[in-house]
């Protein structure tokens, strides 16, 4: 068994129009920039995939990564908790123009819905959002006299994930707080595509230190020295290169 794929382009080749795609990361940390850019390359060449539903904590920053995916017009709907950033113009303009749909979810509920999708839990109760407009239309129940909102699992067709080290079986570690949503999204997608700074043979990661066991991972592609969204943005980068922001 070897889950290694040769390139980001090959890894994202199977993502179809209208797919639900979870993209790991919190802001730029843990964002799989190279996988996202490979997906944009495919769209620029072929016109597909489009009308994607994307799940991410945020809505992109500047003109690279998720922001670029939105900017080129591939995203129909975004499910996120915090669509603001240092430079949120791409999403903001599309949203105010009615060109992109937004499902706003409290951050912890977003994380738990994704985990529930991965864990086979179709619904759960949370105190979060009770009595607010984000709970409108959702069932409410009391337990021990306290009100809770019922939330549904969230699953995806694909997850794009950034790891630190992967082995060829798909066991993963992450770098510092780049962990964030990545391990959860690995669990909740039918196909989980991982970019890792380094791919090692089985046994190359201590079994005690595996954060995501390989059972949750479909494909791994090595991307040494991956880009950091924050650094790209500080350098004024735009993707695809040569396009104007």
């Amino acid at each position, binding site marked *: *068994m070897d889950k290694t794929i040769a390139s980001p382009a090959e890894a994202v080749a199977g993502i179809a129009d209208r797919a639900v795609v979870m993209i790991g990361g919190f802001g730029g940390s843990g964002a799989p920039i190279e996988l996202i850019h490979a997906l944009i390359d495919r769209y620029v060449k072929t016109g597909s995939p489009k009308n994607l539903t994307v799940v991410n904590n945020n809505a992109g920053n500047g003109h690279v990564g998720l922001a670029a995916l939105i900017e080129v017009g591939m995203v129909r709907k975004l499910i996120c908790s915090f669509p603001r950033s240092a430079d949120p113009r791409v999403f903001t303009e599309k949203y105010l123009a009615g060109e992109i749909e937004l499902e706003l979810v409290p951050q912890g509920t977003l994380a738990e819905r994704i*985990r529930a*999708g*991965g*864990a*086979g*839990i179709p619904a759960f109760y949370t105190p979060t959002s009770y009595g607010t407009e984000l709970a409108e239309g959702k069932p409410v129940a009391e337990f021990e006299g306290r009100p809770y909102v019922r939330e549904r699992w969230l699953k995806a067709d694909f997850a794009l994930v950034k790891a630190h080290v992967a*082995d*060829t*079986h798909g*066991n993963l570690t992450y770098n510092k707080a780049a962990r964030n949503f990545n391990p959860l999204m690995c*669990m909740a997608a039918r196909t989980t595509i991982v970019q890792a700074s380094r791919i090692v*043979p*089985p*046994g190359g*990661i201590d*079994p*005690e230190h*595996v954060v995501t*066991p*390989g*059972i*949750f991972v479909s494909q791994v592609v090595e991307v040494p020295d991956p880009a950091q969204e924050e650094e790209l943005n500080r350098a004024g980068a735009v993707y695809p290169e040569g396009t104007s922001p």
Partner: protein
Amino acid sequence: MNAIKSANYEDIKLSNAQIAWRAAQDIADGAYVNLGIGFPEMVARYQPPGREAIFHTENGILDFGEAPPAGEEDWDLINAGKKAVTLNPGAAFFHHADSFAMVRGGHLDVAILGAYQVAQNGDLANWSVGAKGVPAVGGAMDLVHGAKRVAVLTEHITRKGEPKLLERCTLPLTGVGCVTRIYTSLAVIDIENARFVLREKLPAISLEGLQSLTGAELVIDGLVTDLNVPEL
């Protein structure tokens, strides 16, 4: 069941090892597999050459291997049956909630379990023989509603000669409509549209003989091939 049939049964039936061997032939390369405690654990020994399945144990290991030599056990490194195991390269540890996220979340390709009874609608009874004694369930009820494919390994009949494949289970259920394939000591049977569909049977038993040892109709739908298993 009359005594003659039961005697004949003992002569021709597959051993547990042979049933496990047959089940092992259906496990794809790279499959994630959970084997029930006891007899189903034997399936791991019979992986076809060139195929590499990865075994999951509910207590929190992926890709564990054989038992260590006696005296070299690490009692923090055990499987769901509390037997000492070893690790293969690429193994991982995780806690019970993550372990059952793998199970319940549909991440296992196949779970292979023992059975007291299986019904033609896929109901399984394998955790309780009813009122007396101490009930114990473990992970069975999670596995039957989690794995992509739930297969059963079983003797075709009980020691008393009674059928274990039935129209309806009479023992307490483990899960409803969950089993899709049964490997017995006499046959391989799929469950499709709430019917037992016969796929393979031992050459030594007639279709009528097999039906007489089965508590519900055996449907023929497509080819029935010989169940050929090596001596083990």
